[in-house]
């Protein structure tokens, strides 16, 4: 029951559909990713009659959400989606869950059957707010056109503020036809939702004392720094430099600290570097900013960074003490907190303990010397790591964005591609959604038409949203799908090899299409490299062509991704290569972990 029909601000009345478009324009929306259907026809009709908002027709509603995520993550703006009722809404669910897990701001408008039919099992009716309640930050069903403008503005506010996330606004068809008043974005103040962005100063002061007195410190930072905006990454870099302490990033946080910086230890976690994981294990003060102690990062909780003091900065109070009990929690936006940290550090003229720091770095250098990302170089077969390294060298100096699918290729991309800036690395971290990369690349490319956008893909993942090649061709988005084709669901095969006695149950990619012909069938360009000598030429051609491209990079089907901390193991239990075995010691509680 919605009663709060606001006092009419302007006498002018608009139809619900026009209210939707006006509200989107007032929210600064340029692009909407969507797919039409009966329950959203009035909005599509209104779209037809105007030119400010550009609609991108995807080929599956899941892809609409991923494309909006790609747009949002590469620009810092809210991504916008429009889908129909029933199957349109249910198809969007994976994308919404993905955006929830990775804290990506999305507003997804869904059509609904007319209000008088709700609950009657009408054609294409689904309980959209019911289905999406656990996979959105918030959702709304607008039953009265007088509330429509307010709800849309509120939805954008909720999506972008605090810890960002997806918002669904379900709009019955009769509400789209009905006439009602319009209110602008500035006339809205949310009744209950006011996230804390400024930290408690006393807590920051306490943190600074801990940080300054550390002997074996480490910065562990995540997607929260990226989400806070580019300034937060600058401040992080500045603060880390002021201390001279080592810094590691989560999968979501890559780019927030420049990869080329000598203080950077690489990514941490299950497939993170040896030095990052061992430094985490051995630290005495951990400065966690905008990361959430995910199980992919912590490994075995009871042996996670034993004996360390942990400072946790997060905008979401529910992230504090969820998996790991911390010593000092600071609620606030990463950017604000870093600003305060830098100011207080300077004001108190803090100097790190140089002798201790020198010893700490000497230890870290020893770990670094293990050269944990090394792999067997050969001329006989294209190693996937080699292909990524060649890609890395070819795109150096070109303005670029990288998206990925999910699997080994994703981890190799994270390990081998250096990200110097935030918002350049778009990967499905929390949900691990195969099929994310291609639509995300299209959304990213639309926001950055002049840049190179590469989806580092696996041959299995790409099949999950391959239909989006059609979208790429239609909108002339020259995205590059760089498939590391190992003919296996490689990550599944790797777990089966290490943990299930090499029984490769259903992980072989049987009956694959010819990716070159497939690209051509879509009207895109297909390229293939099956010999080491062809790799560079294919990459150069891929970059040269100003069209969507699929590259079929035929790589070693047997290669595994190392380092690896098997599930349920501690950070110092890290496997460095094929000669490290695990069967003897995978604890039973580790086997059940995913």
């Amino acid at each position, binding site marked *: 029951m919605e009663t709060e029909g606001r006092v009419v601000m302007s006498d002018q009345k608009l139809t619900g559909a026009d209210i939707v478009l006006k509200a989107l324009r007032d929210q600064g929306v340029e692009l909407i990713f969507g797919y039409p259907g009966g329950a959203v026809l009035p909005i599509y009709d209104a779209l037809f009659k105007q030119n400010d908002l550009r609609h991108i027709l995807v080929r599956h509603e899941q892809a609409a959400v991923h494309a909006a995520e790609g747009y949002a993550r590469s620009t810092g703006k809210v991504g916008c989606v429009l889908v129909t009722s029933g199957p349109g809404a249910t198809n969007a669910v994976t994308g919404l869950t993905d955006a929830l897990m990775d804290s990506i701001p999305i507003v997804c408008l869904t059509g609904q059957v007319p209000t008088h039919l709700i609950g009657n099992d009408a054609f294409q009716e689904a309980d959209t707010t019911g289905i999406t*309640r*656990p996979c959105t930050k918030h*959702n709304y*069903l607008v039953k009265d056109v007088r509330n429509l403008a307010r709800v849309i503005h509120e939805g954008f506010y909720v999506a972008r503020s605090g810890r960002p996330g997806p918002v669904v606004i379900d709009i019955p068809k009769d509400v789209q036809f009905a006439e009602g008043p319009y209110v602008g974005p500035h006339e809205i103040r949310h009744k*209950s939702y006011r996230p804390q962005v400024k930290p408690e100063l006393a807590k920051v002061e306490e943190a600074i004392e801990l940080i300054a007195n550390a002997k074996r410190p480490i910065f562990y930072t995540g997607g929260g720094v990226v989400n806070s905006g580019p300034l937060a990454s600058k401040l992080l870099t500045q603060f880390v430099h002021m201390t001279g302490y080592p810094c590691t990033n989560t999968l979501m946080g890559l780019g927030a600290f420049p990869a080329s910086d000598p203080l950077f230890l690489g990514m941490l976690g299950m497939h993170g570097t040896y030095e990052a994981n061992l430094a985490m294990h051995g630290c005495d003060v951990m400065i966690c900013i905008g990361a959430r102690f995910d199980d992919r990062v912590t490994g075995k*909780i009871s042996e996670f960074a034993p004996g360390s003091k942990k400072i946790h900065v997060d905008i979401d109070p529910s992230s*504090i*003490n969820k998996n790991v009990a911390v010593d000092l929690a600071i609620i606030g936006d990463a950017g604000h907190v870093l600003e305060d940290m830098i100011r207080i550090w300077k004001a108190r003229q803090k100097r790190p303990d140089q002798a201790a720091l020198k010893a700490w770095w000497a230890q870290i250098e020893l770990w670094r010397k293990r050269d944990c990302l090394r792999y067997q170089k050969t001329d006989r077969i294209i190693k996937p790591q080699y292909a990524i390294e060649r890609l890395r060298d070819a795109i150096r100096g070109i303005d670029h964005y990288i998206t990925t699918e999910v699997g080994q290729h994703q981890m190799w991309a994270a390990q081998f591609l250096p990200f110097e800036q935030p918002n350049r690395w778009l990967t499905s971290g929390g949900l691990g959604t195969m099929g994310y990369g291609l639509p995300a690349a299209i959304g990213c490319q639309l926001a950055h038409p002049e840049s190179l956008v590469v989806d580092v893909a696996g041959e299995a993942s790409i099949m999950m949203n391959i239909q989006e090649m059609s979208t790429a061709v239609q909108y002339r988005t020259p995205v590059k799908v760089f498939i590391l084709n190992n003919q296996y669901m490689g990550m599944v095969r790797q777990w089966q090899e290490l943990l299930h006695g090499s029984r490769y149950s259903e992980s072989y990619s049987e009956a694959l299409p010819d990716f070159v012909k497939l690209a051509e069938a879509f009207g895109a360009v297909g390229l293939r490299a099956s010999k080491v000598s062809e790799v560079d030429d294919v990459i150069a051609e891929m970059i040269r062509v100003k069209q969507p491209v699929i590259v079929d990079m035929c790589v070693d089907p047997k290669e595994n991704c190392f380092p690896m901390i098997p599930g349920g193991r501690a950070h110092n239990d890290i496997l460095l290569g094929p000669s490290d075995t695990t069967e003897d010691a995978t604890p039973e509680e580790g086997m059940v972990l995913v």
Partner: protein
Amino acid sequence: MPNDLNAKIEKHTIAVVVDNEPGVLARVIGLFSGRGYNIESLTVSEVDPVQRLSRITIVTSGTRMVIEQIKAQLDRLVPIHKVRDLSDDEKPCIERELALVKVVGTGEKRIEALRLADIFKARVVDATLTSFVFEITGTGDELNEFAGLMSQLGMIETSRTGIVAIGRGPGGF
């Protein structure tokens, strides 16, 4: 919670003020089921018709870390205005529950039921020659005790409201 496998399980009464709009209760319940928290009791009713606010009282149990998580997760829901852990007050909060208890029987048992009801300050709200319906208000424990005795005296049905609670002293929510 991996960190505190041996930690003590505590019982907490949490009060939540929410917008009275469709779906809020589903959000709260979905949060508890989705994250595997316990609900021992849950009550809800509108308390401010002008601002359309409802108050939800939840009794839950878990380790300290889980209780803190529950409060933080509740606070994160968009239509939630305030979350307060009444069990964190210095003095224990006031908790009340109401039950309707139907007892069927004749002779000695019927007389004994009436006598006990009197001791527990339960009211008779319906009577026939062979049955009573008692209304009793008290803490959950008092109600359990009453129901335990009545079950030996012909109790065939009982309906309880769940717990409502409020803090002691002059302080408000």
